[in-house]
């Protein structure tokens, strides 16, 4: 084994361990993440870490075709995140509020409660579940 190959393979091993650790930490955030956007951010991050894994495997095996796989995975991850963002917007009002300290919501930060327009609209409607209807 030449020194160059040795350096490379040990670097790949260390990086695999580090990435594995990062993966586990991100999965922790996906599992406990108190809100939906938290989970989406963590899922986005997972895609990035998996791209790192794919790159390492590409170097280990020497198949450069893995680059295309990584790029397509990145594309899918981007589209998934965009779709999730649209979903968060379309779903409307906040899901059951996560248990948080009382000072967590600074005064005046909940927009729909005091804004005159949406609340006026909501009064006209029959008692519906708290979600805003948007045309998009």
């Amino acid at each position, binding site marked *: 084994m030449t*020194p*160059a190959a040795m*350096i*490379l393979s040990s*670097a*790949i091993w260390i*990086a695999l361990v*580090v*990435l594995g*650790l*990062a*993966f586990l*930490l*991100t999965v*922790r*955030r996906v599992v406990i993440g108190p*809100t939906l*956007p*938290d989970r*989406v*951010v*963590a899922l*986005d*991050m997972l895609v*990035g*870490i998996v*791209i*790192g894994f794919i*790159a*390492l495997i590409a*170097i280990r095996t*020497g198949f*450069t075709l*893995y*680059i*295309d796989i*990584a*790029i397509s995975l*990145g*594309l899918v991850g*981007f589209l998934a*995140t*965009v779709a999730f*963002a*649209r979903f968060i917007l379309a*779903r409307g*009002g*906040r899901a059951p509020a996560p248990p*948080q*300290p009382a000072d*967590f919501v*600074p005064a*005046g*930060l*909940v*927009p*729909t409660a005091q*804004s*005159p*327009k949406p609340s006026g609209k909501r009064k006209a409607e029959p008692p519906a579940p708290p979600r805003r209807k948007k045309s998009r």
Partner: protein
Amino acid sequence: MIELVLAILIATLILVGAAFALVAAIGLNRLPDVYTRMHAASKAGTVGSGLMLIAVGLHAGDVATLARALAGFFFFVLTAPISAHLLAMAALKMGYPLASHTVRDEMQNHREAI
């Protein structure tokens, strides 16, 4: 000799990329709210995976692969801010709260308008 230098360069890129990914994951767990977590994921995460892709391109040692790896890197750098921006906007519009020690929020007067 050149082989050794190249190997060291690739190893450095791999290790730095992995370290950035780890830092982003730690940040994801330590930071207090969605918006600050987005900072960690969109910057350190993108740079981490991008560096590793460039390492693959260098390792393959031919121009076509390097060009593709660079194209992939550009692609990630282009898409990361867009998805982060979209998520932040969606979360803010839907009223997900900022962390308790947020020092200023100049947007709250405008939030009814959007």
